């Protein structure tokens, strides 16, 4: 089992959710985070609207899904195409994949793939 985490633009969150479901993932969850990468920040005003500064904290949404190894490529491709804004512009986000040792469904005590 693997965990796929993607940092995406917040406005993409709900459509990505739908795409993941179509791809057959068992579930997912989303977290609001703020991030910084090549997109160095956003210009905001401080004081009384008297000066503009660049703030590092850009709102992003982290979407996390745990899937069986076979689904990996499908899900990654869906995330790549679904999360791209237009032609792709700085700040579209990243995907990180890691191993999950065990999964449990609390309701039924099912473990492993059946729990996803």
């Amino acid at each position, binding site marked *: 089992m693997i965990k796929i985490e993607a940092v995406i633009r*917040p406005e993409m969150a709900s459509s990505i959710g739908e795409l993941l479901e179509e791809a057959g993932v068992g579930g997912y969850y989303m977290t609001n*985070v*703020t991030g910084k990468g090549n997109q160095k920040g*956003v210009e*905001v*005003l401080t004081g009384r609207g008297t000066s*503009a500064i660049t703030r590092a904290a850009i*709102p992003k949404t982290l979407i996390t899904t745990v899937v069986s190894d076979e689904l990996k490529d499908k899900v990654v491709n869906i995330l790549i195409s679904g999360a791209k804004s237009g032609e792709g512009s700085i700040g579209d986000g990243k995907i990180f994949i890691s191993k999950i040792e065990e999964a449990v469904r609390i309701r039924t005590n099912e473990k492993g793939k059946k729990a996803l």
Partner: protein
Amino acid sequence: MPEFDSGGMAWMMVASALVLLMTPGLAFFYGGLVRAKNVVSTMMYSFAAMALMPVIWVLWGYSLAFGEGNAFIGDFSYVLLNGINMTSTDPAADIMFVIFQGMFAIITPALITGAFVERFKFSTYLIFITLWVTLVYAPICHWVWGGGWISQGVFGDQGALDFAGGTVVHLNAGAAALVAAWMVGKRRGGAAGTIVAHNVPYVILGASLLWFGWFGFNAGSELAADGVAANAFLTTNTAAAMAALTWLVISGLHTGKMSAVGAATGAVAGLVAITPACGWVDVGGALMIGLTVSIVCYLSAMAMEKSGIDDALVVFGVHGVGGAWGALMTGVFAAEAIGGVKGLIEGNGAIVLEQLVGILATFAYSAVVTFIILKILDVIPGLGLQEIEETELGGLDVNIHGERGYIADGAD
């Protein structure tokens, strides 16, 4: 123009302050209904009307609306309130009237904004409301309250009844909203039917401040602290409550949930519909108007959702349809014992025709001139109506105003 005694003056100052407070009320009502990324922007459409309209009003707005002029528009005789001051024969009365009417000129353009929130270009907006209040609001105000043609009556001596602005304010704003929603275009990234209010307490706060301020709006329109004002106060409160209750019940029966946003909307719909009627009908009429307007507006809100026009916060459905309904019902329920004019129920069908004329003329004029103004603003280079996609998707707050509505400690 009235002369005010000390009690009348006290009441009119308060009423004016109450009407001013309606615009922040609207800012919260509308601001709660949009998505979090546009809350500042939505509130700023209203707050900017508070900043801009009073300036225009004393410069030329009052003069165009209440200068003698002709049957269709005032003149420039009162520019910069020329001649209206402490040395004029009846200084207090005139200044007070300027103030009270000026508050109406703030809230009316602010009402329109619900139609195009989350996408209308803010710099264009500032120009839009400047032109709109000059070319649409001031003339219609003149027709109805400034001695213009509607007030003079078309079929008889008794012109259309509009106690506190059902046509001038609400139908007018509703018509402009319909046109503006259509011309600005739909919101990108979020089908209308999937967006939910981001802050329901703000919606309740906003509706409550509107309700509170509306006492100034309606009972203040009597321009005196007397029995007619008290009647307007009572009918206003009754219709608001009845309509809120009705919407709550309909929404509960129809969707299975008792919507708070629905109850708040019902209250506003009731307030809209009683506005033209409040000084002409009794409490029974107020109950009927409150009951019926929520049914009518609920249906029109549903229809708007399917219409393909993204009137984001249902301004046409509530203020346009509700304003027209209220104007019509004023003609139906007007009671001689209250305001001296009989309505349809008391056998005076003619007044309903006058009301219809007022409704149609206001709707047509407002829609057409709003269309022309927006068309021109759309084609002027550097202006344009809708924000670019990137700005809209990322949110108007940060992109246009350089501010985010809410910032938490830590990660934010």
